[in-house]
Each structure stands twice: as structure tokens, then as C-alpha cells.
């Protein structure tokens, strides 16, 4: 059963005649929350307030703007990258196998370890990591993770089965750059390309991508 009745609710003193008052002045902006979903919801409501503002001025309300202290030290930089990657993983953690997620975090801690850092090591680019997460949940490769970082900061994934190799570089915005070597008998075949994530399996189809991605004995990516 649905109801269309609307009961008047006044949360604060607002005047319908005040030209400086936002149209939706009674909109309650959420006050607690640290997740990306909380930020997305707050952004939606602030956008409602902005678009329906009756004056030419932006009215600051109770919304808080988080400003984090930015330090330029390497330790801080690596900490922020690790934290951002783990927070990003948290957004989809309900779809991830626990052991796979913990393995991913161990990998991240290794490639972003300040104790083992060299001056010419590339920093992981978070947009690349986002592509990696979406790749993992869409393709669901079943093999153990082995991560590297390209000179441009993009995540590199590699699979080796016998003499057959597949490498995929995770570019931002769901773009993948791949290179493979596949032996058919004694015949060596190689190929390379760059495709959107949605097209990857279709493009790799002639080379049987499950040859690399499927491993029934290893930890699955997702539940």
C-alpha cells in the first residue's frame, strides 16, 4: 500500500518569503559518515541546494569540507596511496572474497612499502587501481594476484601458464593494455592491444583467456 499524504515538518525556522533562503532549506544534510557513499549522498543534496538556490550567492550550510593536512614526505605519500586504495576496495568489499581482499592488501603493502622504496620506483596511480578493481569484479580471474607498477604508475598484472604469458596494464577509465604469448603446439603466437574493459574477453577470445584466468585451486576474486 502506498500513501501520498504529506505532513508538514519544520526542522528549523525558515521563512518562505526570505529571498536569501534556499528553496529546500529544510533539507537535512547528513552529519556523520566517512565513506564514499556518504560523500556521494552529501554531494547530491548540496547539488540540490545549489541548483535551487534563489540568489546568486552560494549559501554555506552545515556541510563540512574535509581538509586533510598534506605533507610532501615519501612516507605520507605512500600512506595516502595505500589508504586510498584500501578505502576504494572497501566500497566493493561485500562482493570480494575475504582471502582475496587480504592478499590484495598484502600486495599493496609490499609495493608501497617505504622501507623497501627506491627513488626511481613509480607511485601507484589510483585511477589505475580503480580500473583494476572493476576488472577483478567483472572478469573474476581465479588465479593468485601478482602485482607490479609500470613507469606511468599503472598496475601491471601478469599470468604465466607453462610457456604462455599474459600481461595486462590497467589504464585509467576502464582501459586495458594487453600483451600475450601463446604456444599452440610448438607454434609461438603473440598479440597485443588496447581495449575497453567491456571488450576484453571478446578480444582475447581466440586465445582462450580462461587458460590464464581460471585456476580452480586458487582463491576466487569474488563470492
Amino acid at each position, binding site marked *: 500500500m502506498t500513501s501520498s499524504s504529506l505532513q508538514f515538518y519544520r526542522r528549523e525556522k525558515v521563512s518562505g518569503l526570505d529571498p536569501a533562503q534556499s528553496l529546500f532549506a529544510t533539507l537535512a544534510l547528513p552529519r556523520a559518515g566517512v565513506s564514499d557513499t556518504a560523500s556521494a549522498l552529501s554531494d547530491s543534496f548540496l547539488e540540490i541546494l545549489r541548483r535551487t538556490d534563489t540568489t546568486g550567492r552560494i549559501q554555506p550550510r552545515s556541510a563540512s569540507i574535509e581538509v586533510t593536512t598534506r605533507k610532501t614526505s615519501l612516507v605520507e605519500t605512500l600512506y595516502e596511496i595505500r589508504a586510498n586504495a584500501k578505502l576504494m576496495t572497501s566500497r566493493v*568489499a561485500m*562482493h570480494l572474497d575475504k582471502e582475496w581482499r587480504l592478499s590484495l592488501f598484502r600486495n599493496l603493502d609490499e609495493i608501497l612499502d617505504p622501507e623497501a622504496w627506491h627513488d626511481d620506483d613509480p607511485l601507484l596511480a589510483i585511477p589505475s587501481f580503480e580500473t583494476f578493481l572493476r576488472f577483478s569484479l567483472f572478469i573474476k580471474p581465479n588465479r593468485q594476484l601478482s602485482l607490479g607498477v609500470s613507469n606511468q604508475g599503472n598496475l601491471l598484472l601478469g599470468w604465466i601458464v607453462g610457456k604462455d604469458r599474459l600481461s595486462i596494464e590497467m589504464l585509467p577509465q576502464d582501459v586495458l593494455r594487453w600483451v600475450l604469448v601463446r604456444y599452440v603446439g610448438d607454434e609461438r603466437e603473440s598479440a597485443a592491444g588496447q581495449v575497453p574493459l567491456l571488450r576484453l574477453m571478446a578480444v582475447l577470445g581466440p586465445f582462450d583467456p580462461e587458460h590464464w584466468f581460471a585456476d580452480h585451486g586458487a582463491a576466487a576474486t569474488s563470492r
Partner: protein
Amino acid sequence: MTLPNSDNNEAVSGQYPKAPITEAVIDFRFADSIPQESYARTRDKLLDNYPLSSDWVEGIASFDMVKRSGSFQEAVRGFRLSSVDQVNVAIIADKRFSVSRLAPYSGWEDFRTRARETWGVAKATVGYRKIERIGVRYINRIDIPMGENATGVEISKYLAFRLDVPQPPFPAIQLQTSQAIFDFDGRMVIINTGTVPAPLVKHVSVALDIDIGLERDVPQADDALWAYVDSTRDLKNVLFEASITDAARALFQ
């Protein structure tokens, strides 16, 4: 009005293997500010459970479009503490104490235990502060798979709490955000729903945000305080189950 009792409501939320919770929050707001000198001591005592800490600064930015000038004023300063995996977060700043659990949700008992322990340490360090608001908030994100050649999803199949749009003349909704506020015997319940960016490929995501706050007759003693938090969680469960359909429940298995 008699509140629904989760003990006799068959639709109470149980443990879902893939619970759509992206954040659970227990939030206390104080009448007076926490003394600045207490921040560092509180942080240090919580380091075992929250080894990572960063400054938490809230500011107010003001713009005058006529004068073409702007200003920034720091309003709040404190700490954001987190576990190494970033899923357990505590914020202690000015008039605020909050504990959050991000996905993957570990269950009410685990979350509540951690929150109460954290509160105990903070209260022992900071001292008594009158609580003027208690908030319990659960933010859910329902990730709905699109069909093979589909361009969208029928949200009403998943969300009982929804926007009814006459069609025709309106076409399919592109984006939506809604807020409804209810008074449950003195508890203010805010239900925020809306489309949010989908983190999964070929999915549409909808947030179902249940925010329950108490600002009248707020319990101050710890036992009464946490009994209230427990009862609010029960109410949240009832409201959550009433807001979704069996099709949504199937997504959480």
C-alpha cells in the same frame, strides 16, 4: 505510537552474506567542545585499535560573488583514527565522537563492541561531556545488475521506498535523490535514497541511507545510552526490511 518490535517482526533483517552496508555509524554530539589538550591523549590511548591517525579539519568556505572574494575559516580540528585496513574509523573532533565501520560489515555485535570500547577510552580520557544528540546511521548501496542489452533497471523491483512517476508523460528517470523525514516517538528518522555512481561494471547503484537521531531526553549514563543504541539498531532493521523487496534480498545472498 508503538514502535515496531524487532523481536516479533518476521521481516527483521538477518545476516546477509553480501550485506549492502557501505558504512555503519554511531555518532554522539556534545553540548560543549572537547578540550584541545585532550585530543592527543585520546588518540594515543586508542592507537592499539586505531594505529593510523590523521588530522581532521573542518572548515567553512565563504564566497561573495558580488565582491568576488572568498575566505576560509577553520571551524573544527581533531583526529581521524583508523585501523590498518581502513575499515574501522573513529573521529574525535570538537563536539563530535563517532565510530564508523566500512564494508565489509562485520555484524552488529562486533561493531557495537568496538564502538563501546572506543567510547569508554575516549570518555575516560576526555571526561564527561553532556550528549545532546545520539545518531545511528546505516548507509546501504544496492548494486543492481543490468540485463545483457538493458539500458537501465526498474528500481521499484528492488526498492519499496521509491519515487512513483507517472509514465507517460515522463520517460525513465535518469538520476534521482529523495529525502523523507519521520518522527518515531521523538526519534528523527531521515531516509535518504538516490542513485549513486555504480562501482561495478554493468550495474546501477542505489543508496538507501537510514539515519536515526535523538535530540530530546538523551540518555547520559552508559548503560542507558547503549541500550538506546541497541533499540535504535532494531528500529533500523525494521525500516530497512520494509524498504526493500525480495528481489533486493536475493542480491545480498
